[in-house]
């Protein structure tokens, strides 16, 4: 199973700033290994962020995103103490979900 994400969520004025670090190889499918064989593509395809069951961010990613991606975004409509849940799904169908409490 994939390693946990690092999620930080803090209030900035009336908005919530979320910063996420994800552990993922993000193979493009273009690279070759030492034997010359193509390393199969393996990357995060979908990322969603929900707060109180409501989706605040939904993204479709491709192989152009870097290894161990960092994602930062802001949204309004939540308060300190609420929980942000981030979920990613990769092209192998692997899934990882982690949550963080919004700090004041």
């Amino acid at each position, binding site marked *: 199973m994939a390693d946990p994400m690092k999620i930080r969520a803090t209030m900035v004025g009336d908005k919530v700033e979320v910063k996420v670090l994800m552990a993922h190889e993000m193979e493009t499918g273009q690279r070759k290994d030492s034997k010359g064989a193509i390393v199969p593509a393996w990357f995060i395809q979908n990322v969603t962020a929900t707060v109180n069951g409501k989706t605040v961010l939904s993204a479709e990613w491709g192989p152009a995103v870097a290894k161990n991606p*960092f994602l930062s975004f802001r949204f309004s409509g939540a308060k300190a103490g609420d929980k942000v849940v981030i979920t990613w799904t990769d092209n192998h169908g692997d899934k990882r979900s982690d949550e963080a409490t919004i700090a004041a």
Partner: protein
Amino acid sequence: MTHTWITAAALAAGFFAAGLATAQDKDSTSKQIERYREALAEGNPAELWEARGEALWKEKRGPKGASLERCDLGLGPGIVKGAYTVLPKYFADTGKVEDLESRLVTCMVSLQGFTPGEAKKDPFGGPGKKVPMDALVAYIASESRGMAMHVSIADPKEREAYELGRQIFFYRGGPHDFACASCHGAEGKRIRLQDLPNLTNPADARKAYTTWPAYRVSQGEVRSMQWRLNDCFRQQRFPELEFTSPASIALSLYLARTAEGGVMDAPAIKR
């Protein structure tokens, strides 16, 4: 003359590629690299290694099914906070000067029951290969963030290793007749557009030493001091620097001592 010209051309190309329209003065390239580092620092993936390392530190592993939590890293059994600032140091139980990586190997053998061969088998991670060593090093180094380097050379064994490290630093050899000092022994040297620290100068040594281990963006891995030295040897076309060998520890002690008083800021992030 030709050399100067190439240097100027390379610099100009660098400015152009980076799109630095306002970059006129000589220092602006390094300033821009500094800005790039700052921009990256916020989302340093080394945090993922730190988290994994902390879990590994507490996880019961090996034939003895024990965690590393009783490991003495130099400040007493189980003390991680600040341990990186006193390493490498002499350990009475093994009778050797050890750095962080070799000390971890010692603890994996004595506490967890691994054989030395198993403990040293995968010193560095790579694509698709996550190794415990990188993560443990990242975690332990991160617990010394903000603390000043203070290694001892009071013990005769430490003094001996320090002297040996200094000799290795200045020793010229290999097909390129290179020493560490060839690149890191004078002011104002650089490789491509990266300024090289003069490691004989305490100000530069502090800055360099305190930012390792580091996450290498171009490799997508956290790299330890052992890796850094190993790769320097490769770049010098020296014989391979064996993982946790006395030579590697001696060199590390020499650098750590030169960086005395530098405030740890690792794992850092590098290009």
